[in-house]
């Protein structure tokens, strides 16, 4: 389920975070070599939920898509600025929550950006499947963005319900 305009989403997220059984956050440079690093961190964090291999692959793919978006789109043309990605993971009971945030250019039209096959970078052979994969592999996806103020991608997934 994709949620786009829900004013209290932040509040709900923060309440969940306060009630989390376990929480971690990480900040790293927006470099392609950190895509694998971010995936491994989330995968290691979620092992405490005793996930199936498939569930772990789903989360790794979604994280990879979100982090890649920050690097390719979030910080386009902003090379002089400090380019960091902030990642937050926590779990509440059997649910895993992941936030990926950049502080870059922001997304002008979120619903268009989320359309499958839509890409602003066809020259770079981007497939336009990033958000579609995040949506398919996670239970919930919420995107918040403001021009010039970065983008936040909130995702959650129940583990072990299959």
């Amino acid at each position: 389920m994709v949620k786009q305009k829900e004013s209290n989403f932040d509040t709900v997220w923060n309440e969940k975070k306060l009630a989390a059984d376990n929480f971690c956050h990480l900040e790293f440079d927006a470099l392609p070599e950190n895509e694998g690093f971010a995936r491994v961190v989330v995968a290691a964090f979620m092992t405490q939920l005793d996930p199936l291999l498939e569930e772990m692959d789903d989360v790794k793919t979604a994280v990879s898509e979100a982090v890649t978006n920050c690097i390719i789109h979030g910080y386009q043309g902003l090379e002089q600025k400090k380019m960091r990605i902030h990642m937050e993971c926590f779990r509440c009971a059997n649910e895993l929550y992941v936030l990926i945030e950049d502080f870059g250019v922001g997304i002008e039209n979120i619903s268009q950006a989320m359309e499958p096959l839509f890409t602003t970078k066809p020259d770079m052979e981007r497939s336009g499947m990033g958000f579609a994969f995040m949506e398919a592999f996670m239970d919930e996806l919420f995107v918040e963005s403001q021009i010039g103020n970065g983008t936040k991608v909130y995702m959650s997934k129940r583990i072990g319900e299959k």
Partner: protein
Amino acid sequence: MDTMFTVRDGCLLVTMPKEMDHYKVDMIRKSIDQYLLSGEAQSVVLDFENTGFMDSSGIGLIVGRHKMVSCFGGKLVATHANPRIQKILLMSGVKDMIEII
């Protein structure tokens, strides 16, 4: 380096890396295109034997190489894809575009 390129009879065999993401894709694209543009190879086989992870960056690479190989009258084939990679290929619609063995 976990990616290897071998040419035999005009066919380029690419042993794909363990993890196919945006970081790996740029390098692989450049190498494949070099083989195609120099005329050393017309067809490409992507061998996913060692690959356990692929995201949408890999899809972009496959679609792009498919277009390019088609221009040269060659074929693009994917082989040894595990169930996870097959799922990604299926979901993105790439499965109908190239040959998978």
